[in-house]
């Protein structure tokens, strides 16, 4: 199709074009809701059945990193929203700045995620043949008294859990399967989002976004906020099971 400036050939007006893109993105987000929804359903039913194992699995996650990451992601949502605002009011320099900030925060999030994944790998908590919930308590050499006590507590917990759920290996593995599937898919969405941000930054550096034409920033913003929302649910569901013991 022929393009005339910002207007694509199939549209009659910029108005119509903007309307279509925004609606298109929203509808895409609907499909995303149901996409993640299928996993949330799988999660719900398994968690209901194997609550103990899910608690054990959840308690191995690093709550500090999780909380920090939640903060980072929320902050990136803020900078994204600010980028949209800057485009709407025509502050071209700010648009680029906020987009870069968003990208940076997104990268920090992914970096922290990598650290967490690495931890799970070291602790033999990747579902598959080497999976072993006992690995960590059996193979850690605590340096402090405090660390030793914590480890003993943990061993105690595991023993108790094994009593209620003898097949805790399988069921904890189920938890980690869901953990990796859900956070992995979420991370994949972040990576796609980062790609989109890089594209936006390029356009923005060329000064393309004006109060009249800023739809790309807006719809990428929608996507980014949606990914944030998914995390808002993932965080309590994965990190905060049975924390109060």
């Amino acid at each position, binding site marked *: 199709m022929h393009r005339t400036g910002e207007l694509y050939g199939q549209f009659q007006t910029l108005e119509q074009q903007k309307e279509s893109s925004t609606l298109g993105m929203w509808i895409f987000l609907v499909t995303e809701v149901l996409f993640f929804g299928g996993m949330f359903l799988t999660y719900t039913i398994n968690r209901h059945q194997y609550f103990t194992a899910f608690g054990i699995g959840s308690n191995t996650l690093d709550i500090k990193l999780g909380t920090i990451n939640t903060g980072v992601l*929320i902050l990136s949502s803020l900078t994204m*929203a600010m980028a949209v605002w800057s485009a709407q009011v025509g502050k071209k320099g700010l648009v680029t700045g906020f987009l870069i900030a968003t990208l940076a925060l997104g990268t920090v999030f992914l970096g922290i995620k990598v650290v967490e994944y690495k931890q799970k790998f070291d602790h033999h908590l990747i579902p598959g043949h080497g999976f072993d919930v006992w690995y960590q308590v059996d193979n850690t050499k605590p340096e402090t008294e405090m660390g030793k006590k914590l480890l003993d507590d943990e061993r105690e917990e595991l023993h108790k859990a094994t009593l209620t759920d003898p097949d805790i290996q399988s069921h904890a593995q189920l938890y980690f399967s869901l953990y990796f599937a859900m956070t992995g898919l979420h991370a994949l969405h972040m990576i796609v989002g980062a790609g989109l941000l890089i594209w936006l930054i390029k356009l923005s550096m060329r000064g393309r976004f004006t109060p009249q034409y800023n739809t790309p920033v807006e719809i990428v913003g929608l996507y980014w906020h949606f990914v944030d929302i998914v995390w808002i649910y993932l965080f*309590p569901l994965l990190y*905060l099971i049975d924390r109060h013991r």
Partner: protein
Amino acid sequence: MSEHSEHIVSPIVYMVIFFALIAGTTVTVLAAFQNFGQFNIVIALGIATAKATLVVLYFMHARYSPRRTQLVIVCAVFWLAIMLALTLSDYQTRQQHLSRIVPPAALYRA
């Protein structure tokens, strides 16, 4: 098509929402370390939903969007609800056999 002319949300609103979200996160984490029994999960999901609503309404401008967009959002939530509710309805009632239904009260001694 003037109803679609865009509404610019001020940065102050964004900041307020941001702090509300951070506060929500903090409360969630703190609440998770208390024992509320059955209600831990309710609290966690309740706060998460409140946070998500804020993001949708303000960061995603749903509050200022045309009706049609709002309808799209409602549809997403509605279909998600169908999927969860109807499936869980099977799981929740599976154990009960029609032949064995007994009035619940005062039937047992513990």
